[in-house]
């Protein structure tokens, strides 16, 4: 949790030297692709059996000092009511709430999204009559003063 005095100090610094837009970025993946050599996070994760769960990971990075970051979904996981309020700074196990204070650093969070059936995918995508693969995109929007970054990952549901 960001403490009040820390937020006040950083806010004052930010006012004195506004954060530049290019210093903020984010990354997201929607599942793990596993082979004999191991598992890797995937930007496009395919679901072919149900029920299944999409495992989303989100990372926000700042290359600036004293960046105060907010984050939100504006697509799939927002509709699903996923909680994005708790983030981990670097490799710390403790969770921090938004807004995050990032000094040349990064933070991550995860969200699991169970999908019970192909029909649920179609309903979420707003294409109830679809017969082929259905695309479910989720977008993370992170923002600091003067900067916004967005990143997208995808779940593909097969019949």
């Amino acid at each position: 949790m960001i403490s009040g005095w820390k937020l006040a100090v950083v806010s004052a610094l930010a006012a004195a030297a506004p954060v530049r837009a290019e210093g903020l970025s984010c990354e997201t993946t929607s599942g793990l692709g596993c082979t004999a050599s191991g598992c890797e996070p995937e930007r496009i994760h395919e679901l072919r059996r149900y029920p299944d769960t999409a495992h989303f990971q989100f990372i926000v990075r700042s290359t600036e000092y004293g960046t105060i970051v907010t984050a939100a979904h504006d697509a799939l996981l927002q509709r699903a009511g996923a909680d994005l309020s708790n983030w981990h700074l670097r490799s710390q196990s403790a969770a921090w709430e938004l807004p995050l204070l990032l000094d040349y650093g990064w933070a991550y969070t995860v969200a699991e999204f169970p999908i019970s059936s192909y029909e649920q995918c179609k309903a979420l995508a707003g294409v109830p009559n679809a017969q082929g693969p259905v695309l479910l995109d989720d977008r993370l929007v992170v923002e600091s003063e003067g900067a916004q970054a967005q990143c997208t990952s995808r779940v593909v549901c097969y019949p």
Partner: protein
Amino acid sequence: MKPRVVCRVATLLLAAGAGWRCGPTSSVAPIVAVPPGQQGGVSPPQVATQAQIRILGVGTHDFRSVNVAIQGVTVEVNGAAVEVQPADRRIDLASASGWVAGQFALPAAGSKVHVTLTFAPDGSWARASSSGAIDARGIPIAFDATAEKILAHGSVEVRIDLGSSLVLDGGGRLALLPNLGIRF
């Protein structure tokens, strides 16, 4: 903002505006943002009443071309749709130049602006020795901004990182999953 201050800001911005890059088909001149009804009286050489939505590919790696088409641009100001003048339709995100996706009337100070930008489903890419299709289906690019952010420079720029936004899908195509930054 007082007229004298507006004029000073306008003069500075006009000088800075020369740094903007426009695509080959764009004939839009650099603009100076002055909110409606607040135009300075000391012979401003060029005062725009339109805000621009610009789009630019960055991190192009070895792509020679990344061709996509802008299918639609919508702008809402305080929840009400406003007219958008389309500009560049077919764009090459691997080009060093930026592109103008659309223009709309400068919003009044204090208002909230919501922008969406949709690509046509099919695009194409090329490297030195290979080429292929781009699947540009997916959710539209969308963002919110305060009028003040847009009025600061009279434009907003969407910077798509091509290195992380084009992802190989199961069908052998590159899917456009935008990783981007918004510059006001």
